[in-house]
């Protein structure tokens, strides 16, 4: 996968004292563009993944107090997710996240778009989950399946769009 080695890299941090996962990633885009990619359903569905799965948005109101629901589908298998938009601002989104397969579990996600200037933005994504057990299971199993077959398709997609 050397084709992607020059891309911006994700950094992940599992907080040792709180059941939190923090993700940081730079983008060659403005905060406004990142906001659009997170709030416009047709854009969001194209990248949220998991890879190899098709995302169908069922409900979407990306405003403060709004809600969302989508399913990821592959070979007739569907995985549903839903949550609420607690706050949608120019450089910050706060929302809840629940996997339908584990309806009592809820993560609180805070996304922050830090303007780095020159059309670059640093995304800070934080997920607070219910317990260390949930957090570590999440890290271990990955909510996303089918990671291996995804790379080839992804490289093709990027090559096509670049």
């Amino acid at each position, binding site marked *: 996968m050397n084709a*992607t080695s020059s*891309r*911006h*890299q*994700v950094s*992940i941090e599992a907080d*040792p*004292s709180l059941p939190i996962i923090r*993700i940081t*990633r730079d*983008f*060659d*885009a*403005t905060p*406004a*563009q990142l*906001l*659009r*990619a997170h*709030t*416009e*359903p*047709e854009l*969001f*569905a*194209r*990248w*949220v*993944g998991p*890879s190899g799965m098709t*995302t*169908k*948005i*069922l409900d*979407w*109101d*990306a*405003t*403060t107090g709004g809600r969302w629901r989508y399913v990821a589908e592959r070979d007739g298998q569907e995985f549903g997710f839903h949550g609420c938009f607690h706050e*949608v*601002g*120019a450089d910050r989104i706060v929302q809840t996240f629940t996997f339908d397969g584990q309806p009592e579990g809820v993560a609180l996600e805070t996304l922050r778009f830090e303007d780095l200037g020159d059309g670059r933005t640093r995304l800070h994504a934080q997920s607070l989950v219910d*317990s*260390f*057990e949930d957090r*570590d*299971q*999440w*890290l*271990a199993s*990955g909510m*996303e399946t089918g*990671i291996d077959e*995804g*790379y080839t398709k*992804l490289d093709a*997609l*990027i090559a096509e*769009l*670049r």
Partner: protein
Amino acid sequence: MAEDQLSRVFAALADPTRRDMVARLAAGDATVGELADPYDVSVQAVSKHVKVLADAGLVSQTKDAQRRPCHLEAEVFDLMTKWIERYRRQAQERYERLDAVLAEMGGDEARSKPGHLEQGAAS
């Protein structure tokens, strides 16, 4: 090993006292008595915690008859690091898809304003 041991590792580390003990053992070996010192619990309770950590393979106790110091098994953490690396790769992959979407969006970033987004389903 993998799956089974990993669940034991994650379960062992789900407890704040045990996480704290692991953090202290990372600085150097310690006896059960030394580990018990800062906590308001009995040596027996700490012994139980050490047993859970030992069952998960996180900690070993040498046969040194007198002190039997606890030792942190660093390679188990390497295993966890690998799992986190897998999660990282998934996130990396997701954001590379986002890169592609952003690249295609180009300059038309003023189409909608936050807080006034159209409702609708993706086709």
